[in-house]
């Protein structure tokens, strides 16, 4: 054997590696009754919840129609459909926030714990393949659960109020949620040696990303000197998939400024203080004036009248102008795609970091528990 024949560069195996890991992981996850039982339990839970929400909404609607004979039953049915849809999306978001990190937080740390990572690391498969393969196969399981719930969600079409593209939006957000928080779990799993610690820290991070950052927004908002002061950045909510689902729900409402839309409008900085949103700085159709840019700080009264902020004047909009109603409704999909994009970027970042941490001969290594620490070099003998 000459050196020349040996010195042929071999490419890192990415695809075969991902396949190898995927086949192995899925064989383990889907073996026996486990997969069947978990899918069944998930669908039963989701269906049961949908039924209960439906019952609540139906009884509410019946009461309203009893007291207000003028209520249109078609509108009521649509309200029920929207309610079930939104409740299902919120429930599934909650379940995915638990299931996705839980199924990934042990993937790499358990290989370390069981001392199998070395066996993997000496094969030519790349760290990318190890991390991505593990993440994808863990997510496959979550994806199966999400997909299995689609028939349950389809019940909303019986009631109406939700268009198929709303369902697509909702499910797109669910998948993004699973990917992002799955990647978060994978990151902590590769950072820490112990699966328990990785799982714990992952859920702390999930809480910070969702509840924590949202609470900071609320804190900043409530403690600011005036309601007209600059709003806290909406980006604080980007990691909270519930808010993104609220925006999807807002889309089903046609953005009347009430319901879920009022929450989204409050976050995105469109003023809702009088119940009608005005996208600040955007053009509004003012009756008799055509398209006019509304200056910052403009408020629109529920009747469409433009009113000034205290101490500010208007040059181009006369106080008392009436805004055309269709101009008041800001466009759909203005918030949740930003949230989805942020979560996807986060997923890429965490996955990249996980790959770094798994690479056996990496050059940098953070000082963390479980990794050999600097020895004391004092003169005193032990």
């Amino acid at each position: 054997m000459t050196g020349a024949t040996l010195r042929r560069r071999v490419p890192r195996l990415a695809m075969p590696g991902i396949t190898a890991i995927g086949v192995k992981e899925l064989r383990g996850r889907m073996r026996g009754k486990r997969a069947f039982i978990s899918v069944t339990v998930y669908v039963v839970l989701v269906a049961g919840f949908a039924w209960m929400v439906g019952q609540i909404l139906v009884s509410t609607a019946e009461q309203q129609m009893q007291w207000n004979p003028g209520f249109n039953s078609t509108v009521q049915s649509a309200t029920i459909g929207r309610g079930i849809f939104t409740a299902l999306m919120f429930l599934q978001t909650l379940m995915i926030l638990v299931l996705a990190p839980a199924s990934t937080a042990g993937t790499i740390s358990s290989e370390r714990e069981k001392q199998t990572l070395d066996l993997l690391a000496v094969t030519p498969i790349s760290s990318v393949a190890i991390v991505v393969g593990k993440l994808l196969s863990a997510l496959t399981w979550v994806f199966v659960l999400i997909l299995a719930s689609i028939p349950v969600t389809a019940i909303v079409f019986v009631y109406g109020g939700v268009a198929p593209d709303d369902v697509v939006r909702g499910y797109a957000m669910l998948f993004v949620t699973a990917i992002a928080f799955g990647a978060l779990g994978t990151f902590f799993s590769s950072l820490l040696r112990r699966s328990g610690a990785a799982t714990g820290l992952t859920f702390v991070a999930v809480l910070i990303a969702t509840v924590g950052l949202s609470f900071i927004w609320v804190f900043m908002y409530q403690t600011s000197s005036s309601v007209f002061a600059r709003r806290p950045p909406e980006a604080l909510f980007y990691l909270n998939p519930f808010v993104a689902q609220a925006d999807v729900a807002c889309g089903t409402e046609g953005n009347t400024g009430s319901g879920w839309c009022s929450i989204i409008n409050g976050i995105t900085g469109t003023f809702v203080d009088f119940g009608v949103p005005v996208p600040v700085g955007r053009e509004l159709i003012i009756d008799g004036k055509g398209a006019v840019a509304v200056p910052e700080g403009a408020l629109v009264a529920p009747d469409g009248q433009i009113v000034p902020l205290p101490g500010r004047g208007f040059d181009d909009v006369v106080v008392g102008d009436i805004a055309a109603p269709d101009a008041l409704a800001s466009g759909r999909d203005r918030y949740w795609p930003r949230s989805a994009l942020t979560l996807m970027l986060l997923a890429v970042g965490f996955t990249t970091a996980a790959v770094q941490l798994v690479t056996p001969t990496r050059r940098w290594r953070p000082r963390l528990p479980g990794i050999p620490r600097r020895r004391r070099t004092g003169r005193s003998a032990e």
Partner: protein
Amino acid sequence: MTAIVRSDGLVKRYDRTLAIAGVDLDVAEGEIFGLVGPNGAGKTTTLRILATLLEPTAGDAEIAGWSVRRNPNEVRRVLGFMPDVFGVYDDMRVWEYLDFFARCYGLPAATRKRIIGDLLELVDLADKRNAYVQGLSRGMQQRLCLAHALVHDPKVLLLDEPASGLDPRARVELRELLRELRTLGKTIVISSHILPELEELCTSVAIVDRGRVLASGRIADIEQRLRVGAVLRARVLAEGEALEAARDWFAGQPDVAASAILPDGTVELGFRGDEAGAAGLLRAAISADIPIASFSRAASDLEELFLQVTGQDDPQPGSEAAA
């Protein structure tokens, strides 16, 4: 013969802790090469660097001409590694375990099928093909791990303490297996602190202590080169004070490093000289009227060699290395 595994001044430092302090190895193709040393000598660190699992702080190593620093991926293709402690995946059958690693090397399906059959035959696990890996005995898991390291038909096998935790029977089986692998043309680097195990198996050894190679080569050559001396046993026909006087006489001779009286009345001597020196010592003893019934050189085995080499009291610069 050409060196298939070669390391050149390998150093691994963890912060202030020096795990290995310049390890040079030279393993010829087809050898079974033993890394001998006490716990914490740096055997595992050395093997892990060779297996591309650790990056050396300084120095480099080559396996089949590939540098572990610059071409780790090529090294991984010519290398099979069995770590000292390894786990098995739950929820995996024996054939799936091998199939998984074969996939990791990108082997096509037909090849995988054939190789899995061959390997299970080789490590005598053919009847356990569909058993779950976690249900196998320790010895079987060890053999399975060895089989996994062979799926890609590597030229070099690195085995870290392969016999630890095995019962005597499993050890014998493992030894036979390694011999068989050698006949298949594999070069095997094996580490152990259990010396008899290596002595029967290895063609060459390197004695490692405190992160350094103290001696390496064929066992007989090391003995020669180091002149670490031999143990001489003289059966002296005397008792009590006369025996002690004889012992004292021996102790006063040049090249005698130590002397002791064994319970059976034999005087045992640590002797630094060569064979001619031993002849001279015997002649002098007879001239001194010491009644000697027998005078022999105790067969120096690896264990003694090891104790003598590592017992040499020269503190290494990296002596704090104990990891």
